[in-house]
């Protein structure tokens, strides 16, 4: 089937097997491999994208369900000027090691900070609770989200 998307601000289309999950179409047909497949059961969060303004796990959607949608993937967060504030905070605060969970952690953090610019630690932990990280023990991630909140507030 012909799948049309607005992907990271650009209109794209590709010939996609109708049996594909959305994450498979993003990775294999549109060539954006930053969106990861961890579990394919909706548990780990590594396939997180923003779909029409809301963060979702793209292994839980058929590619066909996204026809015409506006999608941001992890590749769409940084700009030509460099990493965005949340990404830079993860970098500075050791918010990742292997980076596999980053799509979920970054989008969950961005989503939280857009709604709540000064979250406390519990609110941060609640916001990232749909994501599994096997490297950091979450401490660096919580620090990174706090740091991002402070940096955004200081702007």
């Amino acid at each position, binding site marked *: 089937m012909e799948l049309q998307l607005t992907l990271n601000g650009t209109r794209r289309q590709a010939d996609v097997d109708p049996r594909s999950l959305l994450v498979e179409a993003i990775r294999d047909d549109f060539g954006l491999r930053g969106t990861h497949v961890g579990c394919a*059961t909706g548990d780990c969060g590594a396939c997180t994208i923003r779909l029409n303004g809301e*963060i979702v796990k793209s292994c839980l959607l058929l590619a*066909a369900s996204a026809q015409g949608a506006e999608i941001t993937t992890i590749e769409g967060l940084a700009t030509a000027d460099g990493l965005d504030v949340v990404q830079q905070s993860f970098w500075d605060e050791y918010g990742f090691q292997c980076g596999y969970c980053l799509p979920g952690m970054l*989008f969950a953090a961005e989503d939280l900070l857009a709604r709540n610019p000064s979250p406390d630690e519990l609110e941060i932990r609640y*916001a990232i609770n*749909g994501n599994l990280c096997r490297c950091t023990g979450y401490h660096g991630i919580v620090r990174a989200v706090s740091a991002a909140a402070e940096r955004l507030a200081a702007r």
Partner: protein
Amino acid sequence: MIPHRFEYHAPRSLEEAVELVGSADGGTAILGGGTWVVVELNQGTRRPERVVDLRHAGLGTVERRDGATVFGATATYSAVLAADVPAVVREMARGVTGGAQVRNLGSLGGSACYANPASDVPGLVVGLAATMRLAGTSGEREVAAADFFRGAFASDVREGELLTEIVVPDLPPGSRAGYVKFKLCESSWPIVTATCVVGADGAVQRLALGGAQEIPLLVEQAAGATDAASVEAAAGAAVTDPWSDVLAPGEYRRSIAGVIAKRAYLAAAA
């Protein structure tokens, strides 16, 4: 990649959805949010000839109507959290496992139809005496939530039908409801849930356990109880055929059911 081929339809209205579901000769999977069904398709454990995706069918609203809160079948947990809904429903939606990325997809109606014993929605809708509204080519019908769940992963939705709305009636004046779920860790599915409605006089009006047995258990012996110990005893004794799954054996569920019920009572009575 889903291992088998199937037809995909995304109807643009309820009428179109009813026609699609009604005209299929078996083998139809209905997608609400997809958080359960897409996984089954991908794992090859469910191989329908036709997939009917309700995301554009206009069933995602939450509204107040005639002394009730009416949840469209595909209203997501996030839509519920953004709407004017009873506090106890909010409490349930907020605690759904899987993070914002699942709450933005998963729906109350989908969860009810999937009827996983170890999930939040079935026990809650039974506890709140909700009514389930269904539509099919032969017309519409209503089923009390307490009659909707037929077994583990089995609901009263018949061939050719789909769920359209969940109607949660307002509590009587002065009544309050509490919802408590126990799970093993943040990423666990519910082990046992309890929904308790307490009247203005402090007596239990309704208590339902989720996750304890194959289908939600209405604990009739708890009605009228006015103290936590009685609620705990009634709930504990009511579980006679406990549900087991990979997360917890039945004996464990049976042993904690009373305590979870007590907590829901205390949350409502507080």
